[in-house]
């Protein structure tokens, strides 16, 4: 039965359903129970933003608060994954990967290859991504490209509650390490979500809007900005096809190429910095594999090559917005199809 729930509730529900289904699923992280050992309530927080609230009451010790010690507990989750558990470790903010990155990219990502295909590491590392939370440079980054670069891990970034639930369930059931990126500014967004369990396969982009004039590819929060831009373009009789990548590794090249072959124009929207980003990756792939179909240069709409600023006026400028996406789409429709050199370069 479908009902409207928020992305935060959808993630909670996915964890709950998988913990119920599979006793090898354990969940750990800083404050994910909240208050362990403190004099007040047992599960005071349920995660710093309440995403895991209520799970401790149902699943008890399979939810584990950790010391502030990302290397140790992320590494423990990875080690436990090679020993038959299916741990979900919450890295709170993805910015904190700096203190535990070795465990992710040198350990989890490499075990299978390094050990000749003899290891499975079914670990999920959940982390909040993205700007717009007035949380400044060390709590707001979109570091998806960093993980996407690394063979051996999968990277997921849902744009809505339905996808978040199905992709998280797939992440937990998946036998490879998964970095599950949750945009904190989408937590409150509601949509229809079935109460039952379901898994969305990786590598299947979602086409949110059909259109024959220009393809807009994005993921996460900026999917919604892209949809706003598409509505604005439609008022001018420009029909944009909007592709939500859902997973960045693996990525659904076929859907991107199919769409570009029909529209001949591509705008890639990425909340990450421009260099070596998902945007530049998609642009390069299309340039190499569908050059003949392109009627204009590929446009990238990204955050600038600066850290995430604090002051709201600056942060709002930082995040790609609908007018800039629509403007990029119009550039692909202009006779020259080129853009002025941007601060991106």
């Amino acid at each position, binding site marked *: *039965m*479908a009902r409207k729930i928020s992305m935060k509730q959808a993630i909670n529900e996915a964890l709950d359903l998988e913990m119920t289904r599979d006793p090898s699923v354990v969940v750990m992280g800083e404050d994910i129970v909240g208050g362990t050992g403190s004099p007040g309530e047992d599960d005071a927080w349920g995660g710093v933003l309440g995403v895991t609230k209520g799970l401790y009451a149902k699943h008890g010790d399979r939810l584990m608060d950790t010391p502030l010690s990302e290397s140790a507990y992320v590494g423990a989750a990875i080690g436990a994954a090679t020993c038959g558990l299916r741990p979900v470790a919450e890295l709170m903010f993805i910015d904190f990967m700096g203190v535990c990155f070795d465990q992710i990219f040198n350990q989890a990502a490499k075990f299978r290859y390094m050990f000749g295909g003899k290891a499975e590491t079914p670990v999920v590392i959940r982390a909040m991504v993205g700007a717009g939370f007035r949380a400044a440079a060390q709590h707001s980054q979109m570091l998806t490209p960093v993980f996407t670069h690394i063979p051996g891990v999968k990277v997921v970034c849902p744009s809505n509650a339905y996808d978040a639930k199905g992709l998280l369930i797939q992440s937990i059931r998946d036998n490879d390490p998964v970095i599950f990126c949750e945009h904190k500014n989408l937590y409150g967004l509601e949509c229809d979500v079935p109460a*039952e*369990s*379901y898994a*969305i*396969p990786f590598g*299947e982009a*979602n086409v949110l809007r059909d259109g024959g004039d220009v393809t807009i590819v994005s993921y996460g929060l900026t999917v919604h900005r892209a949809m706003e831009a598409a509505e604005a373009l439609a008022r001018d009789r420009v029909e944009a096809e909007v592709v939500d990548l859902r997973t960045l590794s693996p990525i659904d090249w076929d*859907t991107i190429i199919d769409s570009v072959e029909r529209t001949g124009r591509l705008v890639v929207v990425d909340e990450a910095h421009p260099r070596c980003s998902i945007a530049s990756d998609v642009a390069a792939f299309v340039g190499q594999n569908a050059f003949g179909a392109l009627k204009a240069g590929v446009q990238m709409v990204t955050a600038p090559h600066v850290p995430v600023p604090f002051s709201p006026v600056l942060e709002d400028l930082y995040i790609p917005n609908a007018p800039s996406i629509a403007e990029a789409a119009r550039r692909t429709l202009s006779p020259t199809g080129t853009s002025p050199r941007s601060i991106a370069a």
Partner: protein
Amino acid sequence: MQNERIKPIVMPKWGLSMSEGKITGWLKQPGSTIAVGDDLLEVETDKITNVVEAGEAGTLRRVLAEPGNVYPVKALIAVLADPDVPETEVDAFVAGYAVPKGDDGAEAEAAPRYLFTETPAGTLRYAKRGDGGPTVLLVHGFGGDLDNWLFTIDALAEGATVYALDLPGHGQSTKAVADPTLAGLSAALRGFMDTVGIGPAHLVGHSMGGAVSMRTALDAPDRVASLSLIASAGLGPEINHAYIQGFIAATGRRDLKPVLETLFADPGLVSRQMTEDVLKYKRLDGVDGALRALSAALFDGGAQAGVLHGAVAAAGKPTLVVWGGQDRIIPAAHATALGSNARAEVIPNAGHMVQMEAAGTVNALLKEHIGVR
């Protein structure tokens, strides 16, 4: 403002969840003379594109909705009037037109779109529309759900009490299929009728649902007032096994869309949203197992296990058989399997989902057969 000679044409509401529609094109020009049943325009919903037929006659005096634009359900999109109605009156009608309110809101409050009931076969979802008149029960096919009756349920509900359910393993009903045979599905159907309190009903079955309806007419004849079999299974051994296997195997939009296209004479009717809705169903835990169990029990090796037309012919229930002439799932030749024991109608330019693709014609046949006034 009331003017009996001026008639609004509004954005239709098809099915239970439609809230808006996009005009894809007008099939009649302003000034055309319109007869009841004429194709007026095409509307695309998030489910499917369909033709809007004229419900009343007149001259098409105003076309207000532009192709490419989206309008809410019940929005005024065109005006019919007799030729001698002055232009000023037509303009005044348009200017003063107010979208009817109240009844729709109250109806939405009083009757939720979907209901759920606990039956011996598990939790089943259903919809109930209309009140009074004959009781009709709509039974979808393999992999389908009650939304397959998108264009049927409200049309019949104008003069009947109409139920549509999701069979076990389907839609939003329980995904456990305790007994995946026709007898098992029929037992689940009767359990549903018992739980909801549905007396003898006119069963309208599509595809596998037709075979389930036939099985029910044989196993519990007192529960079945008549049979309407639409592109029905159970009337011969042949079935497109590649479709069944492809439907089960598809995990993504790109695999599934071509499979769904075989359901229609016009593959263009398979929208992105229709594909996505089927995918959302197929992703649910338990669906894959249910579909595989049903396929193994009903279509093993590519032949229908339950061929019932001999017994059904003998049972003597009033029976209507409707088929799409371009059905690529079950051959239209099966339409005449019941011989003189049924009325058989084959609609040329429609495929397996004939009740969607030729909704107006199918609805008219159903109304006539069931006696919906």
